[in-house]
């Protein structure tokens, strides 16, 4: 259950959504996406209440990258990514050449250049994760909601994913909300951080302001040491697990 949550998002911003399990991160994303499950209050998109948009209109504007799920049906990677174009097409229609183009470009950007004809259930967890990201990109929606998008990815692809998001936000005016667990990645890539604790916003602001030793200790129950990454000059958090 979420309580007392209010914040604003602007184009070009990457917001990291942090907090312990059960704090309400996924629920918040669902609410932002228009799933009206049990919350009081309102979500506004471009200053209009979310409820006034149809499902299709919402999906043209907001794309979700959730945990990938297994499918028992033989679906090709390209078909999977193309399904992201649902909201921009007609109910029955076939995909246009443009749809296919967009889908292929999205696959390229996610380092999946020749994966189009492969079957989803033949891929590894990490590859599937990237296909899910490609689908979100293919929607051409400008607001991205990502739920632990790097869970299965190796280091190089983790970096790739965040660079992709960052680029989109900086160059094309996208905005993104990312649920993540890696505090350093948050510090590195996010413009703002929401620290969620027991359903409420514990802190909201820039990574330096939010990710203080005191806050981390209170919310996560873990001691942390703060210093500055000499290369990136961003805050660096080192957790101390005492035995």
């Amino acid at each position, binding site marked *: 259950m979420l309580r007392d949550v209010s914040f604003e998002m602007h184009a070009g911003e990457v917001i990291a959504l942090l907090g312990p399990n059960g704090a309400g991160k996924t629920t918040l994303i669902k609410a932002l996406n228009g799933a009206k499950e049990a919350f009081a209050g309102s979500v506004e998109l471009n200053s209009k209440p979310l409820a006034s948009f149809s*499902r299709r209109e919402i999906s043209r504007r907001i794309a979700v990258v959730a945990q990938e*799920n297994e499918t028992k049906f033989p679906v090709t990677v390209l078909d999977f990514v193309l*399904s992201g174009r*649902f909201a921009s097409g007609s109910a029955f229609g076939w995909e246009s050449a443009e749809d296919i183009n967009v889908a292929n470009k999205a696959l390229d950007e996610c380092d999946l250049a020749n994966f189009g004809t492969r079957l989803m259930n033949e891929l590894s967890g990490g590859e599937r994760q990237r296909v899910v990201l490609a689908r979100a990109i293919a929607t051409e929606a400008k607001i991205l909601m990502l739920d632990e998008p790097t869970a299965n990815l190796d280091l190089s692809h983790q970096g790739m994913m965040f660079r992709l998001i960052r680029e989109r936000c900086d160059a094309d005016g996208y905005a993104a909300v990312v649920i993540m667990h890696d505090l350093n990645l948050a510090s590195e890539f996010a413009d703002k951080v929401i620290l969620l604790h027991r359903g409420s916003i514990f802190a909201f602001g820039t990574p330096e302001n939010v990710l203080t030793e005191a806050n981390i200790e209170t919310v996560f129950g873990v001691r942390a040491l703060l210093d500055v990454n000499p290369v990136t000059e961003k805050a660096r958090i080192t957790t101390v697990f005492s035995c």
Partner: protein
Amino acid sequence: MKRATLIFFSLAGLLAAAIAAALLIGSESISPFGLTEQGRAILFDIRMPRVFLGACVGASLAVAGASLQALLRNPLAEPYLLGVSNGAALGTLLAFVFLEGYGFARPILSFAGAGIATFAVYQMARSRAGMNVERLVLSGVIITTFLSSIIVLLTSVLDAARLRGYTFWLLGDLSQATYDGFYLTLAAATVGTIVLSSQARALNLMMVGERDAFDFGVEVGRVRMIVFAMSSLLVGTAVAASGSVGYVGLIVPHLVRLAIGSDNRLVVPMSAIAGAIFVVLADTVARTAIAPRELPVGAITALIGAPLFIYLLRRAN
């Protein structure tokens, strides 16, 4: 796309051939040239409505199966196994017993029975974690056996004379085909196939997950209602006309997917045609294998379907 068009036309051609063959084969041999009056009666009054009804029943059950599989995210979902056919059969039985005189009571109660059973299975099968094979098959088994026992209870109370015909029909029997029954099932099959094909893109998304579908713009609740309503309509009319013909909704969509993949925009309409072919052929066997006696067509589809189902189940694991 080109491959799909090719397969579509071959299937349509196969259907035409199957119907032609079925019209020419039977327990009595008639020659299409120089039809005697008796030959004419056999061809037009007996064989034609039966073969056409078989085609519509096959199409209805296959399309219902294909869309239920997409909705429930499980290639093993099927109206018969899920108890939907039994729900329809119970509805028909109630109409048969209590509303004898009313012609439309059968298909209407059959439709209602199918709808209630579909709803019950769905409610039982879903959980927080979503649906999985075991839960779905289990729910289906529970609903099927529960409904079966009610049917058995009712038939035990019925007069033995009327019972004999009913038990034959329960296994799927096209011998009571009439032109009226054919028109009704044709209408239902057409409406059902068109409506469900129109939802094909949404179903493609739902096949991956309700969450995914929702996120990408599908009105999940609405699509679910449409699939439930249409599959109940399809199964209801089919069962009211010919009893529970099992396994059609399972085998046919699966074979179609093996040939052309899982895109429902292709799978749904093609299942209709392939389902029609399947039942027309099965019924031809049913009425010639031990001629002049007849077998229930559901026995033939089960003979083919059950081993195939076991095979599919093992492959799925």
